[in-house]
């Protein structure tokens, strides 16, 4: 486990007096689909916000791919190879579907500002490559027919896939998915599960997801961590975690999903 892609040690975070995350330890090995579950308000989204640099943890360390990323600006963490989606969608609504993706490709662009303003040949070649890569991602997400549509005209389920595509466009090593199945019907959930596995295999990424749907978690996650009130209550393989009495009580019990 020493070669884990993401290693979090003793991470805690306070919002004023509220301890949203308490002494978390994570080891996410390369290539797995890792699930984080827990009741509403238990600190899951906050964990993602801490990993992606939106907040800096009050205590603890976050090591990614061998180096400390705590305190880095979010966009720099993205450049290092962590991408994410949001529980409440954050789409560039007035941009076209393909532009939503292309934004996420811009930071590797080498063309200077001057070359872009004058549309020199080097610039054009680069833009063409970006377009092709974006179209490829849209095809995988079955959104290729929507590429020129304004993003805000897409139905909810397609927007969820668009966000995943946008995250992948940054060419990440680790993708964080915050409740990707939220608001989906059973058919869409089944398709999504298949998609996540396919994305992991094709893009060779590690997936770290938060999910409420027990079916998704038990179906595709190879490792699971269960939290409640900012504390870890169980961790391990899905079968074992699913039988843990503390989990049954906290998560599936009275305050169940």
């Amino acid at each position, binding site marked *: 486990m020493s070669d884990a892609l993401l290693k979090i040690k003793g991470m805690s975070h306070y919002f004023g007096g509220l301890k949203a995350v308490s002494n978390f330890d994570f080891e996410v090995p390369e290539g797995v689909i890792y699930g984080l579950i827990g009741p509403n308000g238990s600190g899951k989204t906050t964990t993602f916000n801490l990993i992606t640099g939106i907040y800096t943890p009050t205590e603890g360390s976050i090591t990614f791919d061998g180096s400390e990323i705590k305190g880095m600006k979010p966009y720099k963490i993205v450049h290092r190879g962590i991408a994410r989606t949001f529980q409440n969608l954050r789409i560039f609504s*007035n941009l076209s579907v393909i532009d939503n993706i292309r934004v996420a*490709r811009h*930071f590797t662009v080498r063309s200077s500002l001057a070359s872009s303003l004058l549309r020199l040949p080097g610039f054009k070649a680069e833009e063409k490559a970006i377009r092709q890569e974006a179209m490829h991602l849209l095809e995988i997400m079955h959104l290729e027919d929507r590429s020129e549509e304004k993003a805000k005209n897409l139905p909810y389920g397609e927007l969820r896939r668009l966000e995943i595509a946008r995250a992948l466009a940054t060419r990440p090593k680790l993708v964080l998915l915050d409740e990707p199945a939220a608001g989906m019907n059973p058919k869409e959930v089944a398709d999504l599960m298949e998609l996540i596995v396919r994305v992991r295999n094709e893009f060779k990424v590690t997936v770290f997801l938060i999910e409420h749907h027990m079916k998704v978690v038990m179906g595709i996650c190879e490792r699971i961590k269960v939290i409640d009130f900012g504390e870890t209550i169980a961790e391990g393989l899905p079968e074992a975690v699913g039988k843990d009495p503390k989990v049954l009580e906290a998560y599936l019990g009275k305050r169940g999903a």
Partner: protein
Amino acid sequence: MGNLKLPRMLIATAAFWAVVSILNATGILNGYFMIIINRSLIFVILAVSLNLINGITGQFSLGHMGFAAVGAYVSGSITTLIFKLSPDTLAGNGIFVVAIVIGGLAAGFVGFLIGFPSLRLKGDYLAIMTLGFGEIIRTILNNIDAVGGPRGLLGIPKFSNFTVIVAFAFLTIAILRNLVQSSHGRAMLSIRENELAAELAGVDTTRYKVLGFIIGAFFAGVAGGLLAHLLQIAHPTQYGFYASALVLIMVYAGGMGSLTGSVIAAFTLTFLTEGLRVGIDWLKDTVGLPVGTEWTMVIYAILLILIMLFRTEGLMGMREAKILIIAEETK
């Protein structure tokens, strides 16, 4: 450059230039109309450049004329000085164009100086900061004797003419269009759409906000330089809040994020301003009503309220005329 759309925009501009020039030569458009057309074109540059900051990058600047003032005074000082030293060197337009660009660069640099600290602020705070900046520039100019103080910078050689102004307006629109339809421009648009998501898509949001500010300020400085060399004077009162607000209304009326809208609104509102001025003078002198030019601002305030109520997205929304859209090779 292998792209059929650029010539199309060039052809349209050339056609506009030819028609106006012919109408002017035949006396159908007199000097008075030419002044209004030239002013309109300068306001086109001001409006599209403010649109880059407010409409495309999604920030809120209220002090755009402050940058124009920097460009006007810097370029005006350069040409005036050279003119005094040796009037002959001004035979060519070269020095004038260089002075205009230097004025733009100076404005861009000022944009960097105020943009860097203030773009960390959001919404209202940024608006107040830029409003303050515009007023500070005006006050400083009012108090520097070397550039005429409250009398203004006088005796600027008349270098701006219809042809030069059309050329600069064309270049401004073409460059901003190219910017918006590039990776750099999409990074700016993404900030307007959702700043956090932009950052999490790898966009260095601070850098692109400042960059938008610098480029917008540069073109405002160019516009200021053209105006100074058209009117042969740069005066602090030309660059106050009143003028900045007028440019802002143009951007809103045309549509935030639409270069096309800004162009149309700049023309319409410049002509409307002149019409209102004539109308108000008539009411005052002939009818004898106690009204003054400040009433144009009242009318604009009402116009702005009507836009907010009935057509929030402005004339064009975020759409562009076909001529401003670069066709992409889709395969």
